[in-house]
Protein backbone atom coordinates (compact mmCIF):
# COMPACT_ATOMS: atom_id res chain seq x y z
CA UNK A 1 0.00 0.00 0.00
CA UNK A 2 1.33 3.42 -0.92
CA UNK A 3 1.19 6.52 1.20
CA UNK A 4 -1.97 8.27 0.04
CA UNK A 5 -1.74 11.55 1.86
CA UNK A 6 0.49 13.82 3.90
CA UNK A 7 -0.91 16.31 6.37
CA UNK A 8 0.90 18.76 8.61
CA UNK A 9 -1.52 19.88 11.34
CA UNK A 10 -0.76 23.06 13.28
CA UNK A 11 -2.21 21.95 16.61
CA UNK A 12 -2.49 18.78 18.70
CA UNK A 13 -6.29 18.89 18.37
CA UNK A 14 -6.06 18.95 14.57
CA UNK A 15 -3.59 16.05 14.62
CA UNK A 16 -5.84 13.99 16.90
CA UNK A 17 -8.82 14.67 14.62
CA UNK A 18 -6.87 13.38 11.59
CA UNK A 19 -5.65 10.32 13.51
CA UNK A 20 -9.19 9.53 14.69
CA UNK A 21 -10.63 9.95 11.20
CA UNK A 22 -8.16 7.54 9.58
CA UNK A 23 -7.66 5.05 12.41
CA UNK A 24 -4.70 2.71 12.12
CA UNK A 25 -3.82 3.81 8.57
CA UNK A 26 -2.71 7.22 9.84
CA UNK A 27 0.69 7.36 11.51
CA UNK A 28 2.40 10.18 13.33
CA UNK A 29 5.52 11.32 11.48
CA UNK A 30 8.21 12.85 13.67
CA UNK A 31 11.80 12.38 12.44
CA UNK A 32 10.75 9.54 10.14
CA UNK A 33 13.94 7.58 10.68
CA UNK A 34 11.93 4.50 11.68
CA UNK A 35 8.53 5.18 10.09
CA UNK A 36 9.64 6.12 6.56
CA UNK A 37 11.92 3.07 6.36
CA UNK A 38 9.28 0.72 7.81
CA UNK A 39 6.72 1.97 5.29
CA UNK A 40 9.15 1.57 2.39
CA UNK A 41 10.10 -1.95 3.43
CA UNK A 42 6.45 -2.97 3.77
CA UNK A 43 6.75 -3.54 7.50
CA UNK A 44 4.07 -0.97 8.27
CA UNK A 45 1.11 0.23 6.21
CA UNK A 46 0.84 4.00 6.28
CA UNK A 47 -2.06 5.59 4.43
CA UNK A 48 -1.69 9.07 5.86
CA UNK A 49 1.53 10.61 7.16
CA UNK A 50 0.63 13.04 9.95
CA UNK A 51 3.68 15.30 10.27
CA UNK A 52 3.60 16.78 13.77
CA UNK A 53 6.80 18.85 13.52
CA UNK A 54 4.80 22.00 12.74
CA UNK A 55 3.15 21.85 16.19
CA UNK A 56 5.24 24.00 18.58
CA UNK A 57 4.35 21.85 21.62
CA UNK A 58 5.78 18.79 19.84
CA UNK A 59 9.23 20.26 19.12
CA UNK A 60 9.87 22.41 22.19
CA UNK A 61 12.61 21.69 24.74
CA UNK A 62 12.23 23.75 27.92
CA UNK A 63 13.31 23.74 31.54
CA UNK A 64 10.61 24.94 33.94
CA UNK A 65 11.06 27.25 36.93
CA UNK A 66 10.97 24.15 39.17
CA UNK A 67 13.91 22.63 37.26
CA UNK A 68 11.80 20.02 35.46
CA UNK A 69 12.41 19.41 31.76
CA UNK A 70 9.73 19.15 29.10
CA UNK A 71 10.68 17.66 25.75
CA UNK A 72 8.23 17.72 22.86
CA UNK A 73 7.69 14.23 21.47
CA UNK A 74 9.12 15.22 18.06
CA UNK A 75 12.09 17.29 19.29
CA UNK A 76 15.21 15.99 17.54
CA UNK A 77 18.05 14.39 19.47
CA UNK A 78 20.31 17.17 18.14
CA UNK A 79 18.03 19.86 19.57
CA UNK A 80 18.38 18.14 22.94
CA UNK A 81 22.15 17.63 23.04
CA UNK A 82 22.87 21.09 21.63
CA UNK A 83 20.90 22.63 24.50
CA UNK A 84 23.68 23.51 26.97
CA UNK A 85 21.34 23.76 29.95
CA UNK A 86 19.85 20.30 29.28
CA UNK A 87 23.33 18.86 28.76
CA UNK A 88 24.43 20.22 32.14
CA UNK A 89 21.40 19.09 34.13
CA UNK A 90 20.47 15.84 32.36
CA UNK A 91 23.72 14.25 31.14
CA UNK A 92 22.15 10.77 30.96
CA UNK A 93 19.72 12.08 28.37
CA UNK A 94 22.69 13.28 26.35
CA UNK A 95 24.30 9.81 26.69
CA UNK A 96 21.26 8.41 24.88
CA UNK A 97 20.49 11.22 22.42
CA UNK A 98 24.06 11.27 21.13
CA UNK A 99 24.29 7.57 20.27
CA UNK A 100 20.99 6.92 18.51
CA UNK A 101 22.27 6.32 14.97
CA UNK A 102 24.81 8.73 13.52
CA UNK A 103 24.54 12.52 13.31
CA UNK A 104 22.32 12.24 10.22
CA UNK A 105 19.80 10.28 12.27
CA UNK A 106 20.15 12.49 15.35
CA UNK A 107 19.21 15.54 13.23
CA UNK A 108 15.75 14.08 12.85
CA UNK A 109 15.14 11.23 15.29
CA UNK A 110 13.26 12.12 18.48
CA UNK A 111 12.94 10.63 21.96
CA UNK A 112 9.19 10.48 21.41
CA UNK A 113 9.66 8.57 18.17
CA UNK A 114 12.10 6.21 19.85
CA UNK A 115 9.51 5.56 22.57
CA UNK A 116 6.57 5.15 20.17
CA UNK A 117 8.57 2.78 17.94
CA UNK A 118 8.71 0.71 21.15
CA UNK A 119 11.71 -1.41 20.26
CA UNK A 120 12.91 -3.52 23.21
CA UNK A 121 16.44 -2.34 22.28
CA UNK A 122 15.59 1.38 22.05
CA UNK A 123 18.52 3.47 23.23
CA UNK A 124 16.59 6.21 25.00
CA UNK A 125 13.86 4.31 26.83
CA UNK A 126 15.94 2.94 29.75
CA UNK A 127 17.17 6.49 30.35
CA UNK A 128 13.63 7.89 30.25
CA UNK A 129 12.57 5.25 32.78
CA UNK A 130 15.55 5.79 35.09
CA UNK A 131 14.97 9.54 35.05
CA UNK A 132 11.31 9.01 35.99
CA UNK A 133 9.95 10.62 32.82
CA UNK A 134 6.20 10.92 32.41
CA UNK A 135 4.56 10.80 28.98
CA UNK A 136 1.66 13.00 28.07
CA UNK A 137 -0.74 11.47 25.57
CA UNK A 138 -3.46 13.33 23.65
CA UNK A 139 -6.46 11.57 22.15
CA UNK A 140 -10.11 11.98 21.21
CA UNK A 141 -11.04 11.73 24.91
CA UNK A 142 -8.61 14.42 26.03
CA UNK A 143 -5.21 14.06 27.63
CA UNK A 144 -3.76 11.43 29.95
CA UNK A 145 -0.32 10.82 31.35
CA UNK A 146 1.63 7.84 32.62
CA UNK A 147 5.17 6.87 33.66
CA UNK A 148 7.33 5.80 30.71
CA UNK A 149 7.80 2.30 32.16
CA UNK A 150 4.09 1.62 31.56
CA UNK A 151 4.10 2.78 27.92
CA UNK A 152 5.54 -0.18 26.00
CA UNK A 153 3.51 -3.39 25.99
CA UNK A 154 5.57 -5.62 23.66
CA UNK A 155 8.07 -5.45 20.80
CA UNK A 156 6.80 -2.57 18.61
CA UNK A 157 3.64 -2.27 20.70
CA UNK A 158 2.49 0.34 23.19
CA UNK A 159 -0.53 1.75 24.98
CA UNK A 160 -1.50 4.28 22.30
CA UNK A 161 -5.09 3.69 21.18
CA UNK A 162 -6.88 4.85 18.03
CA UNK A 163 -6.56 8.57 17.58
CA UNK A 164 -3.96 8.89 20.31
CA UNK A 165 -0.51 10.45 20.05
CA UNK A 166 2.40 11.13 22.35
CA UNK A 167 2.72 14.88 22.99
CA UNK A 168 5.63 15.30 25.36
CA UNK A 169 7.91 13.81 27.97
CA UNK A 170 8.40 15.54 31.32
CA UNK A 171 11.41 14.86 33.51
CA UNK A 172 11.35 15.82 37.19
CA UNK A 173 14.10 18.16 38.36
CA UNK A 174 17.17 16.11 39.34
CA UNK A 175 17.43 15.77 43.12
CA UNK A 176 20.37 17.28 44.98
CA UNK A 177 23.36 14.86 45.08
CA UNK A 178 21.85 12.77 42.28
CA UNK A 179 23.48 11.50 39.11
CA UNK A 180 22.37 9.43 36.14
CA UNK A 181 24.03 7.62 33.26
CA UNK A 182 23.26 5.39 30.28
CA UNK A 183 25.48 2.84 28.52
CA UNK A 184 25.01 0.50 25.58
CA UNK A 185 26.98 -2.58 24.58
CA UNK A 186 27.54 -3.05 20.85
CA UNK A 187 30.35 -4.91 19.04
CA UNK A 188 31.45 -1.77 17.18
CA UNK A 189 32.04 1.83 18.27
CA UNK A 190 29.00 3.49 16.68
CA UNK A 191 25.84 2.93 14.73
CA UNK A 192 24.57 -0.40 15.96
CA UNK A 193 21.59 -1.88 17.73
CA UNK A 194 22.14 -2.62 21.41
CA UNK A 195 23.03 -6.16 22.46
CA UNK A 196 21.98 -4.78 25.82
CA UNK A 197 21.79 -1.34 27.43
CA UNK A 198 21.20 0.10 30.88
CA UNK A 199 20.51 3.33 32.71
CA UNK A 200 20.82 4.30 36.37
CA UNK A 201 19.69 7.31 38.32
CA UNK A 202 20.91 7.47 41.92
CA UNK A 203 20.74 9.93 44.79
CA UNK A 204 23.37 9.94 47.52
CA UNK A 205 22.87 10.78 51.20
CA UNK A 206 24.07 14.18 52.47
CA UNK A 207 27.43 12.72 53.57
CA UNK A 208 27.75 10.78 50.32
CA UNK A 209 28.17 7.39 52.01
CA UNK A 210 24.75 5.85 51.30
CA UNK A 211 22.29 5.55 48.44
CA UNK A 212 19.13 7.47 49.22
CA UNK A 213 17.18 6.69 46.03
CA UNK A 214 17.85 4.66 42.89
CA UNK A 215 16.13 3.72 39.64
CA UNK A 216 17.65 1.19 37.22
CA UNK A 217 16.35 0.27 33.78
CA UNK A 218 17.53 -2.19 31.13
CA UNK A 219 17.04 -2.56 27.39
CA UNK A 220 17.28 -5.45 24.89
CA UNK A 221 16.92 -8.08 27.62
CA UNK A 222 13.10 -8.48 27.61
CA UNK A 223 10.11 -7.94 25.27
CA UNK A 224 9.99 -4.31 26.45
CA UNK A 225 12.50 -1.95 28.05
CA UNK A 226 12.55 -2.98 31.67
CA UNK A 227 12.22 -0.97 34.88
CA UNK A 228 14.14 -3.11 37.38
CA UNK A 229 12.76 -1.95 40.70
CA UNK A 230 14.60 -4.70 42.60
CA UNK A 231 17.96 -3.38 41.39
CA UNK A 232 17.22 0.11 42.66
CA UNK A 233 15.81 -1.27 45.92
CA UNK A 234 19.06 -3.22 46.44
CA UNK A 235 20.87 0.12 46.67
CA UNK A 236 18.53 2.27 48.74
CA UNK A 237 19.68 2.76 52.34
CA UNK A 238 22.86 0.76 51.69
CA UNK A 239 26.48 1.97 51.83
CA UNK A 240 28.09 3.15 48.60
CA UNK A 241 30.54 0.33 47.93
CA UNK A 242 31.29 -2.49 45.51
CA UNK A 243 29.29 -5.08 47.50
CA UNK A 244 26.12 -3.02 47.35
CA UNK A 245 26.56 -2.31 43.66
CA UNK A 246 27.13 -6.02 43.04
CA UNK A 247 23.74 -6.79 44.65
CA UNK A 248 22.04 -4.36 42.24
CA UNK A 249 23.92 -5.93 39.32
CA UNK A 250 22.74 -9.37 40.44
CA UNK A 251 19.16 -8.12 40.65
CA UNK A 252 19.48 -6.79 37.09
CA UNK A 253 20.84 -10.13 35.88
CA UNK A 254 17.95 -11.93 37.56
CA UNK A 255 15.36 -9.58 36.04
CA UNK A 256 16.67 -9.98 32.49
CA UNK A 257 14.69 -12.46 30.38
CA UNK A 258 16.41 -12.06 27.00
CA UNK A 259 16.29 -14.14 23.85
CA UNK A 260 19.14 -15.48 21.75
CA UNK A 261 19.36 -13.84 18.33
CA UNK A 262 21.94 -12.60 15.81
CA UNK A 263 23.09 -9.88 18.25
CA UNK A 264 23.70 -11.99 21.33
CA UNK A 265 22.81 -15.02 23.38
CA UNK A 266 20.70 -15.31 26.51
CA UNK A 267 23.82 -15.94 28.57
CA UNK A 268 25.72 -12.98 27.12
CA UNK A 269 22.78 -10.62 27.58
CA UNK A 270 22.20 -11.64 31.20
CA UNK A 271 25.91 -11.13 31.83
CA UNK A 272 25.74 -7.73 30.12
CA UNK A 273 22.72 -6.73 32.21
CA UNK A 274 24.89 -7.10 35.31
CA UNK A 275 28.03 -5.53 33.81
CA UNK A 276 26.20 -2.52 32.39
CA UNK A 277 24.23 -2.01 35.60
CA UNK A 278 27.49 -1.90 37.56
CA UNK A 279 29.00 0.56 35.07
CA UNK A 280 26.05 2.94 34.95
CA UNK A 281 25.75 2.99 38.73
CA UNK A 282 29.43 3.87 39.05
CA UNK A 283 29.15 6.56 36.40
CA UNK A 284 26.00 7.92 38.08
CA UNK A 285 27.87 8.09 41.41
CA UNK A 286 30.69 10.03 39.75
CA UNK A 287 28.19 12.48 38.31
CA UNK A 288 26.35 12.77 41.64
CA UNK A 289 29.62 13.76 43.29
CA UNK A 290 30.73 16.14 40.54
Amino acid at each position, binding site marked *: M*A*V*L*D*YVAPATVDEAVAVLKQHGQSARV*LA*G*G*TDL*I*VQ*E*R*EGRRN*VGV*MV*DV*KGIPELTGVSIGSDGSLKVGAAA*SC*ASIYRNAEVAKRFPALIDSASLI*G*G*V*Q*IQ*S*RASLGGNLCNSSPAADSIPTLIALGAVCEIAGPGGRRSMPVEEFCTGPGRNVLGDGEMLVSLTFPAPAARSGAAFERFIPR*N*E*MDIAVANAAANITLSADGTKFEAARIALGAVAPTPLFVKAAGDALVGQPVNADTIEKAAEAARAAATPITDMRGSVEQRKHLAAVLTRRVINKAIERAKA
Partner: protein
Amino acid sequence: MTKRIVSTTINGEVVEFLADPGTSLLDSLRDTIGLTGSKEGCNNGNCGACNVVLNNELVNSCCVLAVETNGGTITTIEGIAQGDHLHPLQQSFLEEAALQCGICTPGFIVAAKALLDREPNADEARIRHWLAGNLCRCTGYDKIVRAVLDAAEDMRAGAKA
Protein backbone atom coordinates in the same frame (compact mmCIF):
# COMPACT_ATOMS: atom_id res chain seq x y z
CA MET B 1 -3.14 9.78 -4.32
CA THR B 2 -2.56 13.38 -5.33
CA LYS B 3 0.83 14.73 -6.14
CA ARG B 4 1.85 17.76 -4.13
CA ILE B 5 3.61 20.87 -5.33
CA VAL B 6 6.80 21.32 -3.33
CA SER B 7 8.74 24.57 -3.40
CA THR B 8 12.23 24.34 -1.95
CA THR B 9 15.46 26.29 -2.23
CA ILE B 10 18.07 23.86 -3.52
CA ASN B 11 21.69 25.03 -3.77
CA GLY B 12 20.51 28.64 -3.71
CA GLU B 13 17.79 28.33 -6.36
CA VAL B 14 14.07 28.04 -5.78
CA VAL B 15 12.90 24.76 -7.28
CA GLU B 16 9.26 23.74 -7.69
CA PHE B 17 8.46 20.10 -8.27
CA LEU B 18 5.69 17.54 -7.88
CA ALA B 19 5.96 14.66 -5.43
CA ASP B 20 3.73 11.85 -4.22
CA PRO B 21 3.14 12.08 -0.46
CA GLY B 22 5.33 9.03 0.23
CA THR B 23 8.24 9.88 -2.10
CA SER B 24 11.59 10.37 -0.41
CA LEU B 25 13.61 13.53 -0.87
CA LEU B 26 16.33 11.33 -2.38
CA ASP B 27 14.02 9.99 -5.09
CA SER B 28 12.73 13.48 -5.88
CA LEU B 29 16.26 14.87 -6.12
CA ARG B 30 17.44 12.10 -8.42
CA ASP B 31 14.38 11.21 -10.51
CA THR B 32 12.34 14.43 -10.65
CA ILE B 33 14.81 17.27 -10.23
CA GLY B 34 17.71 15.55 -11.98
CA LEU B 35 20.30 16.04 -9.24
CA THR B 36 21.88 12.60 -9.28
CA GLY B 37 24.93 13.43 -7.17
CA SER B 38 23.20 12.16 -4.03
CA LYS B 39 23.43 8.37 -4.13
CA GLU B 40 21.15 5.60 -3.01
CA GLY B 41 23.11 3.06 -0.97
CA CYS B 42 21.05 1.28 1.65
CA ASN B 43 17.86 3.36 1.35
CA ASN B 44 17.26 2.82 5.06
CA GLY B 45 19.34 5.39 6.90
CA ASN B 46 22.49 3.40 7.56
CA CYS B 47 25.03 4.35 4.90
CA GLY B 48 24.95 8.13 4.42
CA ALA B 49 25.44 8.04 0.63
CA CYS B 50 22.32 10.22 0.22
CA ASN B 51 23.40 12.91 2.72
CA VAL B 52 22.20 16.45 2.12
CA VAL B 53 21.93 19.46 4.40
CA LEU B 54 18.29 20.34 5.06
CA ASN B 55 17.56 23.54 6.99
CA ASN B 56 21.14 23.54 8.36
CA GLU B 57 20.97 19.93 9.55
CA LEU B 58 22.78 16.97 8.02
CA VAL B 59 20.17 14.36 7.08
CA ASN B 60 19.79 11.13 5.13
CA SER B 61 17.61 12.25 2.21
CA CYS B 62 16.24 8.69 1.93
CA CYS B 63 14.67 9.16 5.37
CA VAL B 64 12.97 12.48 4.56
CA LEU B 65 9.73 12.83 2.62
CA ALA B 66 10.05 15.29 -0.25
CA VAL B 67 6.80 16.98 0.83
CA GLU B 68 8.36 17.73 4.22
CA THR B 69 10.90 20.02 2.56
CA ASN B 70 8.31 22.51 1.26
CA GLY B 71 9.59 25.98 2.16
CA GLY B 72 12.94 24.56 3.22
CA THR B 73 16.55 25.05 2.19
CA ILE B 74 18.67 22.20 0.88
CA THR B 75 22.33 21.87 -0.05
CA THR B 76 23.30 18.82 -2.09
CA ILE B 77 26.72 17.69 -3.32
CA GLU B 78 26.04 19.73 -6.49
CA GLY B 79 26.04 22.89 -4.39
CA ILE B 80 29.44 22.38 -2.78
CA ALA B 81 31.84 23.53 -5.52
CA GLN B 82 31.81 27.18 -6.63
CA GLY B 83 31.46 26.82 -10.40
CA ASP B 84 34.66 25.14 -11.57
CA HIS B 85 36.38 25.88 -8.30
CA LEU B 86 36.39 22.77 -6.12
CA HIS B 87 35.69 23.02 -2.41
CA PRO B 88 38.81 22.30 -0.27
CA LEU B 89 37.21 19.00 0.77
CA GLN B 90 36.74 17.93 -2.85
CA GLN B 91 40.33 18.96 -3.61
CA SER B 92 41.74 17.04 -0.66
CA PHE B 93 39.68 13.92 -1.45
CA LEU B 94 41.35 13.93 -4.87
CA GLU B 95 44.81 14.60 -3.49
CA GLU B 96 44.59 11.95 -0.78
CA ALA B 97 42.90 9.43 -3.10
CA ALA B 98 40.15 9.23 -0.50
CA LEU B 99 37.86 7.36 -2.85
CA GLN B 100 37.92 4.26 -4.98
CA CYS B 101 34.52 3.37 -6.43
CA GLY B 102 33.17 6.79 -5.43
CA ILE B 103 29.59 5.88 -4.52
CA CYS B 104 29.98 7.03 -0.93
CA THR B 105 31.99 10.16 -1.78
CA PRO B 106 29.17 12.70 -2.23
CA GLY B 107 27.75 11.70 1.15
CA PHE B 108 31.15 11.89 2.85
CA ILE B 109 31.85 15.34 1.40
CA VAL B 110 28.44 16.73 2.33
CA ALA B 111 28.76 15.24 5.83
CA ALA B 112 32.34 16.44 6.33
CA LYS B 113 31.43 19.95 5.17
CA ALA B 114 28.51 20.01 7.62
CA LEU B 115 31.01 19.20 10.39
CA LEU B 116 33.70 21.69 9.39
CA ASP B 117 31.13 24.48 8.89
CA ARG B 118 30.07 23.91 12.48
CA GLU B 119 33.41 22.91 14.01
CA PRO B 120 36.38 24.17 11.97
CA ASN B 121 38.82 22.77 14.57
CA ALA B 122 37.41 19.23 14.63
CA ASP B 123 40.16 16.73 15.46
CA GLU B 124 40.59 13.20 14.19
CA ALA B 125 38.47 11.60 16.92
CA ARG B 126 35.67 14.07 16.30
CA ILE B 127 35.85 13.53 12.53
CA ARG B 128 35.72 9.75 12.93
CA HIS B 129 32.76 10.04 15.30
CA TRP B 130 30.91 12.47 13.03
CA LEU B 131 31.43 10.29 9.96
CA ALA B 132 30.25 7.08 11.69
CA GLY B 133 26.99 7.34 9.75
CA ASN B 134 28.80 7.24 6.39
CA LEU B 135 29.91 3.85 5.13
CA CYS B 136 32.74 3.19 2.66
CA ARG B 137 33.51 -0.35 1.53
CA CYS B 138 36.71 0.52 -0.37
CA THR B 139 39.09 2.83 1.44
CA GLY B 140 39.21 1.58 5.00
CA TYR B 141 38.41 5.18 6.04
CA ASP B 142 41.98 6.30 6.85
CA LYS B 143 42.40 8.22 3.62
CA ILE B 144 38.99 9.83 4.06
CA VAL B 145 39.82 10.98 7.57
CA ARG B 146 43.20 12.30 6.41
CA ALA B 147 41.51 14.17 3.56
CA VAL B 148 39.06 15.80 5.96
CA LEU B 149 41.90 16.76 8.35
CA ASP B 150 43.88 18.29 5.45
CA ALA B 151 40.84 20.18 4.17
CA ALA B 152 40.13 21.49 7.66
CA GLU B 153 43.69 22.83 7.84
CA ASP B 154 43.37 24.43 4.38
CA MET B 155 40.03 25.97 5.31
CA ARG B 156 41.44 27.40 8.55
CA ALA B 157 44.42 28.83 6.67
CA GLY B 158 42.04 30.24 4.05
CA ALA B 159 39.90 31.83 6.75
CA LYS B 160 42.96 33.58 8.17
CA ALA B 161 44.28 34.80 4.81
